Protein backbone atom coordinates (compact mmCIF):
# COMPACT_ATOMS: atom_id res chain seq x y z
CA UNK A 1 0.00 0.00 0.00
CA UNK A 2 1.14 3.51 -0.79
CA UNK A 3 1.40 5.72 2.28
CA UNK A 4 3.12 8.64 0.60
CA UNK A 5 1.84 9.62 -2.85
CA UNK A 6 4.30 10.60 -5.64
CA UNK A 7 3.27 14.21 -4.99
CA UNK A 8 4.57 13.80 -1.44
CA UNK A 9 1.22 13.75 0.33
CA UNK A 10 0.12 11.28 3.01
CA UNK A 11 -3.24 9.50 3.27
CA UNK A 12 -4.79 12.30 5.29
CA UNK A 13 -3.32 15.00 3.03
CA UNK A 14 -0.38 15.98 5.22
CA UNK A 15 3.22 16.48 4.12
CA UNK A 16 5.69 13.93 5.60
CA UNK A 17 7.06 16.49 8.08
CA UNK A 18 3.68 17.90 9.03
CA UNK A 19 1.90 17.40 12.34
CA UNK A 20 -1.78 16.98 12.90
CA UNK A 21 -3.70 19.88 14.33
CA UNK A 22 -3.14 20.36 18.05
CA UNK A 23 -5.77 21.60 20.44
CA UNK A 24 -5.61 21.85 24.20
CA UNK A 25 -7.90 23.04 26.93
CA UNK A 26 -7.06 23.45 30.60
CA UNK A 27 -9.37 22.89 33.56
CA UNK A 28 -12.00 20.61 32.02
CA UNK A 29 -12.65 18.44 35.08
CA UNK A 30 -14.02 20.74 37.74
CA UNK A 31 -13.45 18.41 40.70
CA UNK A 32 -9.80 17.56 39.99
CA UNK A 33 -6.84 19.60 41.25
CA UNK A 34 -5.59 19.92 37.69
CA UNK A 35 -6.94 18.74 34.37
CA UNK A 36 -6.58 19.14 30.65
CA UNK A 37 -7.85 17.88 27.31
CA UNK A 38 -5.29 17.35 24.58
CA UNK A 39 -6.10 16.62 20.94
CA UNK A 40 -3.75 15.59 18.16
CA UNK A 41 -5.93 15.36 15.09
CA UNK A 42 -8.58 12.77 15.91
CA UNK A 43 -6.79 11.47 18.99
CA UNK A 44 -8.37 12.99 22.07
CA UNK A 45 -7.41 12.38 25.70
CA UNK A 46 -8.37 13.82 29.08
CA UNK A 47 -5.91 13.94 31.96
CA UNK A 48 -6.77 14.68 35.57
CA UNK A 49 -4.35 15.16 38.46
CA UNK A 50 -5.22 14.71 42.12
CA UNK A 51 -2.69 15.75 44.72
CA UNK A 52 -0.25 16.24 46.24
CA UNK A 53 -2.26 14.68 49.04
CA UNK A 54 -1.90 12.22 51.89
CA UNK A 55 -0.76 8.74 50.83
CA UNK A 56 -3.82 6.44 50.72
CA UNK A 57 -1.90 3.20 51.21
CA UNK A 58 0.54 3.72 54.08
CA UNK A 59 2.87 0.92 52.98
CA UNK A 60 3.60 2.76 49.73
CA UNK A 61 4.66 5.97 51.47
CA UNK A 62 8.17 7.22 50.65
CA UNK A 63 9.78 9.27 53.40
CA UNK A 64 11.94 11.55 51.27
CA UNK A 65 9.91 12.05 48.10
CA UNK A 66 6.41 12.06 46.65
CA UNK A 67 4.75 8.93 45.31
CA UNK A 68 3.62 9.36 41.70
CA UNK A 69 0.91 7.06 40.37
CA UNK A 70 -0.68 6.83 36.98
CA UNK A 71 -3.58 5.01 35.41
CA UNK A 72 -4.32 4.87 31.70
CA UNK A 73 -7.75 3.81 30.53
CA UNK A 74 -9.52 3.70 27.21
CA UNK A 75 -13.20 4.44 26.78
CA UNK A 76 -15.32 1.68 25.22
CA UNK A 77 -16.11 3.92 22.29
CA UNK A 78 -12.57 5.21 21.71
CA UNK A 79 -11.61 2.85 18.89
CA UNK A 80 -13.17 2.09 15.51
CA UNK A 81 -14.67 -1.19 16.69
CA UNK A 82 -16.15 -1.15 20.12
CA UNK A 83 -13.82 -2.35 22.92
CA UNK A 84 -15.19 -5.12 25.12
CA UNK A 85 -12.71 -5.43 27.97
CA UNK A 86 -11.07 -2.09 28.47
CA UNK A 87 -9.69 -2.34 31.99
CA UNK A 88 -6.36 -3.62 33.16
CA UNK A 89 -4.99 -5.36 30.08
CA UNK A 90 -1.24 -5.54 29.50
CA UNK A 91 -1.10 -2.74 26.98
CA UNK A 92 -2.70 -0.21 29.32
CA UNK A 93 -0.56 -1.36 32.24
CA UNK A 94 2.54 -0.78 30.14
CA UNK A 95 1.40 2.67 29.01
CA UNK A 96 0.53 3.61 32.62
CA UNK A 97 4.06 2.66 33.61
CA UNK A 98 5.63 4.62 30.75
CA UNK A 99 3.63 7.74 31.57
CA UNK A 100 4.42 7.41 35.27
CA UNK A 101 8.15 7.11 34.68
CA UNK A 102 8.18 9.99 32.22
CA UNK A 103 6.27 12.32 34.51
CA UNK A 104 8.25 11.27 37.58
CA UNK A 105 11.40 12.41 35.79
CA UNK A 106 10.19 15.99 35.62
CA UNK A 107 8.26 16.40 38.89
CA UNK A 108 10.35 17.77 41.77
CA UNK A 109 9.29 14.88 43.99
CA UNK A 110 11.79 15.69 46.77
CA UNK A 111 9.82 18.86 47.59
CA UNK A 112 6.75 16.85 48.60
CA UNK A 113 7.85 14.00 50.86
CA UNK A 114 5.24 11.59 52.29
CA UNK A 115 2.62 12.63 49.75
CA UNK A 116 0.99 11.18 46.69
CA UNK A 117 0.22 12.53 43.23
CA UNK A 118 -2.29 10.68 41.05
CA UNK A 119 -2.39 11.12 37.29
CA UNK A 120 -5.37 9.64 35.45
CA UNK A 121 -5.51 9.68 31.69
CA UNK A 122 -8.61 8.70 29.80
CA UNK A 123 -8.56 8.14 26.05
CA UNK A 124 -11.77 9.39 24.44
CA UNK A 125 -10.68 8.78 20.85
CA UNK A 126 -7.73 6.76 19.65
CA UNK A 127 -6.25 7.52 16.24
CA UNK A 128 -2.57 6.71 16.70
CA UNK A 129 -0.14 8.44 19.01
CA UNK A 130 -2.19 7.95 22.19
CA UNK A 131 1.02 7.57 24.18
CA UNK A 132 2.27 10.98 23.09
CA UNK A 133 -1.09 12.64 23.51
CA UNK A 134 -1.39 11.21 27.04
CA UNK A 135 2.02 12.54 28.06
CA UNK A 136 1.21 15.98 26.65
CA UNK A 137 -2.15 16.04 28.42
CA UNK A 138 -0.55 14.90 31.69
CA UNK A 139 2.01 17.72 31.47
CA UNK A 140 -0.72 20.29 31.07
CA UNK A 141 -2.77 18.81 33.91
CA UNK A 142 0.26 18.78 36.24
CA UNK A 143 0.97 22.40 35.36
CA UNK A 144 -2.68 23.26 36.00
CA UNK A 145 -2.48 21.58 39.41
CA UNK A 146 0.53 23.78 40.22
CA UNK A 147 2.87 20.87 40.89
CA UNK A 148 6.55 21.90 40.84
CA UNK A 149 8.34 20.59 37.76
CA UNK A 150 11.85 20.85 36.33
CA UNK A 151 10.50 21.50 32.87
CA UNK A 152 7.47 20.56 30.84
CA UNK A 153 7.65 17.17 29.12
CA UNK A 154 6.40 16.95 25.56
CA UNK A 155 6.11 13.94 23.37
CA UNK A 156 5.68 13.13 19.70
CA UNK A 157 6.06 10.08 17.48
CA UNK A 158 7.61 9.55 14.08
CA UNK A 159 7.78 6.62 11.68
CA UNK A 160 9.34 5.48 8.45
CA UNK A 161 7.18 4.27 5.56
CA UNK A 162 7.78 4.12 1.77
CA UNK A 163 11.38 5.24 2.48
CA UNK A 164 10.23 8.54 3.92
CA UNK A 165 10.38 9.61 7.56
CA UNK A 166 6.90 10.64 8.69
CA UNK A 167 6.01 12.81 11.66
CA UNK A 168 3.09 12.09 14.02
CA UNK A 169 1.62 8.83 12.68
CA UNK A 170 -2.12 8.29 12.63
CA UNK A 171 -3.81 4.94 13.21
CA UNK A 172 -3.60 3.69 9.60
CA UNK A 173 0.08 4.57 9.32
CA UNK A 174 0.77 3.15 12.76
CA UNK A 175 -0.78 -0.21 11.90
CA UNK A 176 1.10 -0.40 8.59
CA UNK A 177 3.80 -2.38 10.35
CA UNK A 178 6.64 0.09 9.93
CA UNK A 179 8.77 1.36 12.78
CA UNK A 180 7.16 3.74 15.26
CA UNK A 181 9.52 5.87 17.32
CA UNK A 182 7.96 7.63 20.32
CA UNK A 183 10.10 10.28 21.97
CA UNK A 184 9.51 12.51 24.97
CA UNK A 185 11.87 15.37 25.76
CA UNK A 186 12.44 18.06 28.34
CA UNK A 187 12.73 20.95 25.86
CA UNK A 188 14.52 23.47 28.05
CA UNK A 189 17.09 21.05 29.43
CA UNK A 190 17.31 19.41 25.99
CA UNK A 191 17.14 15.88 27.39
CA UNK A 192 15.32 12.81 26.10
CA UNK A 193 13.24 11.15 28.82
CA UNK A 194 11.38 8.53 26.79
CA UNK A 195 12.44 6.63 23.71
CA UNK A 196 10.60 3.63 22.33
CA UNK A 197 10.73 1.92 18.98
CA UNK A 198 9.26 -1.22 17.49
CA UNK A 199 10.35 -2.95 14.24
CA UNK A 200 13.82 -2.61 12.76
CA UNK A 201 15.53 0.35 11.16
CA UNK A 202 19.09 1.04 9.95
CA UNK A 203 21.08 3.21 12.34
CA UNK A 204 21.53 6.22 10.02
CA UNK A 205 17.80 6.33 9.21
CA UNK A 206 16.94 5.90 12.88
CA UNK A 207 18.96 9.02 13.59
CA UNK A 208 16.89 10.93 11.03
CA UNK A 209 13.57 9.64 12.34
CA UNK A 210 14.48 10.37 15.94
CA UNK A 211 15.62 13.86 14.95
CA UNK A 212 12.27 14.40 13.29
CA UNK A 213 10.38 13.20 16.39
CA UNK A 214 12.45 15.57 18.55
CA UNK A 215 11.58 18.46 16.23
CA UNK A 216 7.95 17.41 16.66
CA UNK A 217 8.34 17.49 20.46
CA UNK A 218 9.72 21.02 20.23
CA UNK A 219 6.76 22.14 18.15
CA UNK A 220 4.40 20.60 20.73
CA UNK A 221 6.30 22.32 23.53
CA UNK A 222 5.89 25.71 21.83
CA UNK A 223 2.17 25.10 21.57
CA UNK A 224 1.88 23.92 25.18
CA UNK A 225 3.76 26.99 26.39
CA UNK A 226 1.38 29.19 24.43
CA UNK A 227 -1.64 27.47 25.99
CA UNK A 228 -0.21 27.75 29.50
CA UNK A 229 0.62 31.42 28.99
CA UNK A 230 -2.87 32.10 27.65
CA UNK A 231 -4.38 30.30 30.63
CA UNK A 232 -2.25 32.23 33.12
CA UNK A 233 -3.18 35.54 31.49
CA UNK A 234 -6.82 34.62 31.79
CA UNK A 235 -6.41 33.77 35.48
CA UNK A 236 -4.60 37.07 36.00
CA UNK A 237 -7.42 38.92 34.30
CA UNK A 238 -10.07 37.15 36.39
CA UNK A 239 -8.27 38.11 39.56
CA UNK A 240 -8.24 41.70 38.37
CA UNK A 241 -4.46 42.08 38.48
Amino acid sequence: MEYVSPEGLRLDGRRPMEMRQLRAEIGTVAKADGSAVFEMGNTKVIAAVYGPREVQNRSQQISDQALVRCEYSMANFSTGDRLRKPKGDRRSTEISLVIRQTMEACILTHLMPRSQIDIFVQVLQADGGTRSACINAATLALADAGIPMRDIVTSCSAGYLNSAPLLDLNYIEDSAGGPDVTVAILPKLDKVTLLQMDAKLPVDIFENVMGLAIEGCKAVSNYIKEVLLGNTKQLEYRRGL
Partner: protein
Amino acid sequence: MVGLSVGEKHFIQGGIAQDLRSDGRKRLTYRPIYVETGVIPQAHGSARVRLGATDVIASVKAELGKPSALQSDKGKIAIYVDCSPTAAPVFEGRGGEELSTELSIALQRCLLGGKSGAGAGIDPSSLVVVEGKVCWDLYIDGLVISSDGNLLDALAAAIKAALSNTGIPKVDLAAETTGDEQPEVNISDEEFLQFDTSGIPVIVTLTRVGRHYIVDATSEEESQMSSAVSISVNRKGHICGLTKRGGAGLDPSIILDMISVAKHVSEQLTIKLDSEIAAAEASEEES
Protein backbone atom coordinates in the same frame (compact mmCIF):
# COMPACT_ATOMS: atom_id res chain seq x y z
CA MET B 1 -16.36 9.80 50.10
CA VAL B 2 -17.02 13.43 50.91
CA GLY B 3 -15.41 14.61 54.12
CA LEU B 4 -17.73 17.08 55.80
CA SER B 5 -17.54 18.65 59.24
CA VAL B 6 -20.49 18.65 61.63
CA GLY B 7 -21.07 22.34 60.89
CA GLU B 8 -21.15 21.77 57.15
CA LYS B 9 -23.64 18.93 57.55
CA HIS B 10 -25.92 21.16 59.64
CA PHE B 11 -25.60 23.92 57.07
CA ILE B 12 -26.65 21.64 54.19
CA GLN B 13 -29.53 20.09 56.13
CA GLY B 14 -30.70 23.46 57.45
CA GLY B 15 -30.58 24.99 53.98
CA ILE B 16 -32.68 22.21 52.53
CA ALA B 17 -35.23 22.58 55.35
CA GLN B 18 -35.53 26.31 54.54
CA ASP B 19 -35.76 25.76 50.77
CA LEU B 20 -32.48 27.56 50.12
CA ARG B 21 -29.61 25.20 49.28
CA SER B 22 -25.87 25.88 49.55
CA ASP B 23 -25.62 26.99 45.92
CA GLY B 24 -28.69 29.22 46.12
CA ARG B 25 -31.11 26.83 44.46
CA LYS B 26 -34.56 25.90 45.64
CA ARG B 27 -35.36 22.28 46.49
CA LEU B 28 -36.85 21.50 43.09
CA THR B 29 -34.51 23.48 40.82
CA TYR B 30 -31.99 21.84 38.50
CA ARG B 31 -28.52 23.18 37.89
CA PRO B 32 -28.00 24.70 34.43
CA ILE B 33 -27.68 21.93 31.85
CA TYR B 34 -25.33 22.16 28.86
CA VAL B 35 -25.50 19.78 25.90
CA GLU B 36 -22.92 19.31 23.17
CA THR B 37 -23.52 16.78 20.37
CA GLY B 38 -21.17 15.02 17.96
CA VAL B 39 -18.21 15.01 20.38
CA ILE B 40 -17.02 11.54 19.24
CA PRO B 41 -16.89 11.61 15.43
CA GLN B 42 -16.03 7.89 15.26
CA ALA B 43 -19.34 6.89 16.84
CA HIS B 44 -22.71 6.92 15.10
CA GLY B 45 -23.97 9.41 17.62
CA SER B 46 -22.61 11.05 20.73
CA ALA B 47 -23.29 13.78 23.23
CA ARG B 48 -21.70 15.40 26.25
CA VAL B 49 -23.88 16.70 29.05
CA ARG B 50 -22.74 18.96 31.84
CA LEU B 51 -24.83 19.52 34.93
CA GLY B 52 -22.87 21.84 37.21
CA ALA B 53 -19.57 20.03 37.84
CA THR B 54 -21.02 16.68 36.71
CA ASP B 55 -19.76 15.88 33.24
CA VAL B 56 -20.74 12.78 31.21
CA ILE B 57 -20.34 11.58 27.64
CA ALA B 58 -22.64 9.09 25.91
CA SER B 59 -21.91 7.44 22.59
CA VAL B 60 -24.00 5.19 20.37
CA LYS B 61 -22.41 2.57 18.15
CA ALA B 62 -24.38 0.28 15.87
CA GLU B 63 -23.13 -3.07 14.62
CA LEU B 64 -24.85 -5.54 12.34
CA GLY B 65 -25.73 -8.71 14.19
CA LYS B 66 -28.18 -11.55 14.35
CA PRO B 67 -31.39 -11.27 16.34
CA SER B 68 -31.90 -13.80 19.11
CA ALA B 69 -33.97 -16.86 18.32
CA LEU B 70 -36.71 -15.97 20.79
CA GLN B 71 -37.23 -12.46 19.50
CA SER B 72 -36.53 -12.64 15.79
CA ASP B 73 -38.30 -9.38 15.03
CA LYS B 74 -36.34 -7.20 17.42
CA GLY B 75 -32.87 -5.67 17.48
CA LYS B 76 -30.73 -5.62 20.59
CA ILE B 77 -29.93 -2.58 22.68
CA ALA B 78 -27.40 -2.55 25.50
CA ILE B 79 -26.33 0.18 27.86
CA TYR B 80 -22.93 0.16 29.55
CA VAL B 81 -21.62 2.82 31.88
CA ASP B 82 -18.01 3.30 32.84
CA CYS B 83 -16.75 5.56 35.60
CA SER B 84 -13.46 7.10 34.58
CA PRO B 85 -10.86 7.52 37.35
CA THR B 86 -10.57 11.15 36.22
CA ALA B 87 -13.89 11.72 38.03
CA ALA B 88 -12.61 10.56 41.42
CA PRO B 89 -9.52 8.64 42.53
CA VAL B 90 -11.75 5.98 44.14
CA PHE B 91 -12.74 4.77 40.65
CA GLU B 92 -9.16 3.66 40.04
CA GLY B 93 -8.65 0.06 38.92
CA ARG B 94 -11.79 -1.91 39.71
CA GLY B 95 -13.04 0.67 42.21
CA GLY B 96 -15.67 2.09 39.89
CA GLU B 97 -17.13 -1.23 38.86
CA GLU B 98 -19.85 -1.41 41.49
CA LEU B 99 -21.16 2.06 40.75
CA SER B 100 -20.85 1.47 36.99
CA THR B 101 -22.96 -1.67 37.19
CA GLU B 102 -25.54 0.01 39.41
CA LEU B 103 -25.89 2.88 36.95
CA SER B 104 -26.00 0.57 33.88
CA ILE B 105 -28.77 -1.55 35.39
CA ALA B 106 -30.76 1.46 36.52
CA LEU B 107 -30.53 3.04 33.07
CA GLN B 108 -31.50 -0.19 31.36
CA ARG B 109 -34.51 -0.52 33.61
CA CYS B 110 -35.57 3.08 33.14
CA LEU B 111 -34.98 3.47 29.40
CA LEU B 112 -35.29 0.05 27.79
CA GLY B 113 -38.43 -1.26 29.44
CA GLY B 114 -39.08 -4.93 30.10
CA LYS B 115 -37.37 -8.01 28.67
CA SER B 116 -39.79 -8.18 25.76
CA GLY B 117 -38.87 -4.63 24.85
CA ALA B 118 -42.34 -3.36 25.61
CA GLY B 119 -42.35 0.19 26.87
CA ALA B 120 -38.85 0.92 25.60
CA GLY B 121 -37.83 4.45 24.74
CA ILE B 122 -36.59 3.25 21.35
CA ASP B 123 -38.65 0.72 19.45
CA PRO B 124 -36.38 -2.38 19.12
CA SER B 125 -38.36 -3.62 16.13
CA SER B 126 -37.19 -0.58 14.16
CA LEU B 127 -33.66 -2.03 14.28
CA VAL B 128 -34.49 -5.13 12.27
CA VAL B 129 -33.13 -5.33 8.73
CA VAL B 130 -34.21 -8.87 7.77
CA GLU B 131 -36.48 -10.63 10.22
CA GLY B 132 -34.68 -13.44 12.01
CA LYS B 133 -31.46 -12.87 10.06
CA VAL B 134 -29.99 -9.40 10.30
CA CYS B 135 -30.55 -6.64 12.78
CA TRP B 136 -28.68 -3.70 14.23
CA ASP B 137 -27.18 -4.12 17.67
CA LEU B 138 -27.10 -0.81 19.43
CA TYR B 139 -24.37 -0.31 21.99
CA ILE B 140 -24.83 2.73 24.18
CA ASP B 141 -21.76 3.61 26.23
CA GLY B 142 -21.77 6.18 28.98
CA LEU B 143 -18.59 7.59 30.46
CA VAL B 144 -18.47 9.64 33.65
CA ILE B 145 -15.69 12.20 33.34
CA SER B 146 -16.42 14.36 36.33
CA SER B 147 -18.79 13.53 39.12
CA ASP B 148 -20.65 15.97 41.33
CA GLY B 149 -23.78 14.04 42.15
CA ASN B 150 -26.90 13.14 40.19
CA LEU B 151 -25.07 10.93 37.68
CA LEU B 152 -28.19 9.01 36.68
CA ASP B 153 -30.15 12.04 35.49
CA ALA B 154 -27.13 13.38 33.62
CA LEU B 155 -26.46 10.02 31.94
CA ALA B 156 -30.09 9.64 30.89
CA ALA B 157 -30.04 13.12 29.41
CA ALA B 158 -26.77 12.38 27.59
CA ILE B 159 -28.17 9.14 26.16
CA LYS B 160 -31.28 10.94 24.98
CA ALA B 161 -29.15 13.60 23.30
CA ALA B 162 -26.78 11.01 21.78
CA LEU B 163 -29.67 9.02 20.34
CA SER B 164 -31.21 12.06 18.72
CA ASN B 165 -27.76 12.75 17.25
CA THR B 166 -27.51 9.18 15.93
CA GLY B 167 -27.68 8.29 12.26
CA ILE B 168 -27.83 4.59 11.38
CA PRO B 169 -26.56 3.79 7.86
CA LYS B 170 -29.25 2.65 5.47
CA VAL B 171 -28.90 -1.02 4.55
CA ASP B 172 -29.81 -2.54 1.19
CA LEU B 173 -30.07 -6.23 0.54
CA ALA B 174 -27.54 -7.27 -2.09
CA ALA B 175 -29.25 -10.37 -3.42
CA GLU B 176 -32.21 -12.56 -2.67
CA THR B 177 -31.23 -15.45 -0.49
CA THR B 178 -33.17 -18.54 0.36
CA GLY B 179 -33.24 -20.91 3.27
CA ASP B 180 -30.80 -20.55 6.09
CA GLU B 181 -28.18 -18.57 4.23
CA GLN B 182 -27.05 -15.35 5.85
CA PRO B 183 -28.10 -12.59 3.41
CA GLU B 184 -25.51 -10.22 2.01
CA VAL B 185 -26.05 -6.57 2.68
CA ASN B 186 -24.71 -3.28 1.40
CA ILE B 187 -24.20 -0.58 3.98
CA SER B 188 -24.79 2.84 2.55
CA ASP B 189 -22.36 5.52 3.66
CA GLU B 190 -24.47 8.40 2.41
CA GLU B 191 -27.96 7.76 3.61
CA PHE B 192 -28.67 7.65 7.32
CA LEU B 193 -31.79 6.88 9.25
CA GLN B 194 -32.71 8.90 12.31
CA PHE B 195 -34.45 7.59 15.39
CA ASP B 196 -37.69 8.83 16.77
CA THR B 197 -36.43 10.02 20.13
CA SER B 198 -39.59 11.68 21.37
CA GLY B 199 -40.51 8.59 23.38
CA ILE B 200 -37.26 8.46 25.36
CA PRO B 201 -37.99 9.35 28.96
CA VAL B 202 -36.02 11.65 31.24
CA ILE B 203 -34.96 10.51 34.68
CA VAL B 204 -35.68 12.63 37.73
CA THR B 205 -33.96 11.59 40.93
CA LEU B 206 -35.48 12.80 44.17
CA THR B 207 -33.06 12.61 47.06
CA ARG B 208 -34.43 12.63 50.57
CA VAL B 209 -32.41 14.63 53.08
CA GLY B 210 -33.95 15.01 56.52
CA ARG B 211 -37.70 15.47 56.17
CA HIS B 212 -37.60 16.96 52.66
CA TYR B 213 -36.61 15.81 49.21
CA ILE B 214 -34.60 17.62 46.57
CA VAL B 215 -33.79 17.21 42.87
CA ASP B 216 -30.34 17.26 41.28
CA ALA B 217 -28.33 16.76 44.46
CA THR B 218 -24.62 17.59 44.47
CA SER B 219 -22.21 15.04 45.92
CA GLU B 220 -22.15 16.93 49.24
CA GLU B 221 -25.92 16.71 49.43
CA GLU B 222 -25.90 13.07 48.33
CA SER B 223 -23.62 12.23 51.24
CA GLN B 224 -26.42 13.37 53.58
CA MET B 225 -29.22 11.44 51.90
CA SER B 226 -31.29 8.79 53.63
CA SER B 227 -32.76 7.37 50.43
CA ALA B 228 -33.34 8.35 46.83
CA VAL B 229 -35.94 7.47 44.23
CA SER B 230 -35.18 7.73 40.50
CA ILE B 231 -38.28 8.01 38.36
CA SER B 232 -38.22 8.00 34.59
CA VAL B 233 -41.07 9.90 32.97
CA ASN B 234 -41.76 10.24 29.27
CA ARG B 235 -43.25 13.15 27.37
CA LYS B 236 -46.81 12.01 27.95
CA GLY B 237 -46.25 12.00 31.69
CA HIS B 238 -46.23 8.21 31.97
CA ILE B 239 -43.85 6.55 34.38
CA CYS B 240 -41.44 4.23 32.55
CA GLY B 241 -39.27 2.97 35.36
CA LEU B 242 -38.49 3.43 39.00
CA THR B 243 -35.50 2.67 41.19
CA LYS B 244 -35.11 3.26 44.90
CA ARG B 245 -31.66 3.50 46.41
CA GLY B 246 -30.39 4.00 49.91
CA GLY B 247 -31.17 2.06 53.06
CA ALA B 248 -33.80 4.03 54.88
CA GLY B 249 -37.43 3.06 54.37
CA LEU B 250 -40.01 5.36 52.85
CA ASP B 251 -43.67 5.67 53.66
CA PRO B 252 -45.74 4.49 50.67
CA SER B 253 -47.74 7.72 50.68
CA ILE B 254 -44.51 9.70 50.42
CA ILE B 255 -43.46 7.67 47.39
CA LEU B 256 -46.74 8.51 45.66
CA ASP B 257 -46.20 12.14 46.55
CA MET B 258 -42.66 11.97 45.12
CA ILE B 259 -43.96 10.50 41.87
CA SER B 260 -46.36 13.35 41.33
CA VAL B 261 -43.60 15.87 42.07
CA ALA B 262 -41.25 14.05 39.68
CA LYS B 263 -43.91 14.19 36.97
CA HIS B 264 -44.22 17.92 37.43
CA VAL B 265 -40.42 18.49 37.42
CA SER B 266 -39.93 16.23 34.40
CA GLU B 267 -42.15 18.46 32.23
CA GLN B 268 -39.80 21.39 32.70
CA LEU B 269 -36.73 19.19 32.32
CA THR B 270 -37.99 17.69 29.04
CA ILE B 271 -38.65 21.14 27.59
CA LYS B 272 -35.26 22.44 28.73
CA LEU B 273 -33.44 19.38 27.40
CA ASP B 274 -35.22 19.50 24.04
CA SER B 275 -34.26 23.11 23.50
CA GLU B 276 -30.66 22.41 24.54
CA ILE B 277 -30.42 19.43 22.16
CA ALA B 278 -31.88 21.47 19.31
CA ALA B 279 -29.41 24.29 20.01
CA ALA B 280 -26.48 21.85 20.18
CA GLU B 281 -27.41 20.23 16.88
CA ALA B 282 -27.83 23.62 15.23
CA SER B 283 -24.39 24.76 16.39
CA GLU B 284 -22.86 21.46 15.26
CA GLU B 285 -24.27 21.93 11.75
CA GLU B 286 -22.90 25.44 11.59
CA SER B 287 -19.33 24.48 12.39
